[in-house]
């Protein structure tokens, strides 16, 4: 109960802070747009962490062969997919405001879609297998392979290919920068915590629901 209230307060703080403080970007023509940074980036980070969680439980499944780990893996992935869609949407709205188009094939923008494709491929694989043990086994293997590819696509590629997104070599914002001052951290840090907390809450609830639904089936 207190956790939920705490989370609500945290979010309230983030929303107020994102609007009251100065925008986290200097030297650009429309700094106001960059306020979305406090919402878009944490969601994107959480979707990647969700994938890591799914992969981690995949590894655990391969080790211990407990079906509950597979349940955790798929739940983590499902919620991760939702966050991934939200990150893509918020990113493309930012793109529209800053660079004029919803989609630019910028490396970092594309990488979030590749993550989305990886999530979707994971679920396609799961739906193509009937036997639960085989499903768990192969999904775990695929989640590990997907993780490796995701590291290449999300962390390596955007840093070496030119692009528009802040942080790529030769982006349109060079000369300006995201001001990671204490003030920005005061809002960004809690935002990250808040979205991670929300994800975790959704995750535990989903796990509880699957558990209860299975119990109801047995009754």
């Amino acid at each position, binding site marked *: 109960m207190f956790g939920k209230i705490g989370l609500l307060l945290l979010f309230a703080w983030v929303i107020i802070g994102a609007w009251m403080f100065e925008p986290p970007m200097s030297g650009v023509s429309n700094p106001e*747009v960059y306020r979305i940074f406090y919402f878009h980036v944490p969601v994107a980070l959480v979707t990647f962490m969700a994938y890591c969680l799914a992969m981690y439980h995949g590894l655990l499944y391969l080790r211990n062969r407990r079906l509950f780990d597979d349940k955790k893996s798929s739940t983590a992935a499902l919620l991760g997919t939702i966050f991934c869609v939200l990150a893509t949407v918020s990113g493309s709205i930012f793109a529209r*405001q800053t660079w004029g188009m919803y989609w630019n094939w910028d490396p970092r923008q594309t990488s979030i879609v590749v993550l989305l494709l990886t999530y979707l491929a994971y679920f396609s694989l799961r739906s193509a297998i009937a036997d639960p043990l085989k499903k768990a086994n192969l999904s775990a293997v695929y989640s590990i392979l997907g993780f490796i590819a995701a590291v290449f696509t999300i962390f390596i590629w955007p840093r070496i290919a030119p692009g528009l997104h802040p942080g790529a070599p030769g982006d349109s914002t060079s000369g300006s920068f995201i001001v990671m001052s204490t003030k920005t951290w005061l809002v960004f840090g809690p935002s990250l915590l808040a979205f991670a907390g929300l994800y975790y809450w*959704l995750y535990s609830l*989903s796990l509880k629901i699957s558990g209860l639904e299975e119990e109801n089936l047995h009754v």
Partner: protein
Amino acid sequence: MSNFIPMIVSLLIWGVLWIYVFRLDRRVKELEKNA
């Protein structure tokens, strides 16, 4: 107007997730009642 778009988007993200959380919460309570 366009400067408010980030705000709207952020609130939408926030809103979507919280609606989802409340639906799940309600489902848990309903299942616990049946068990």
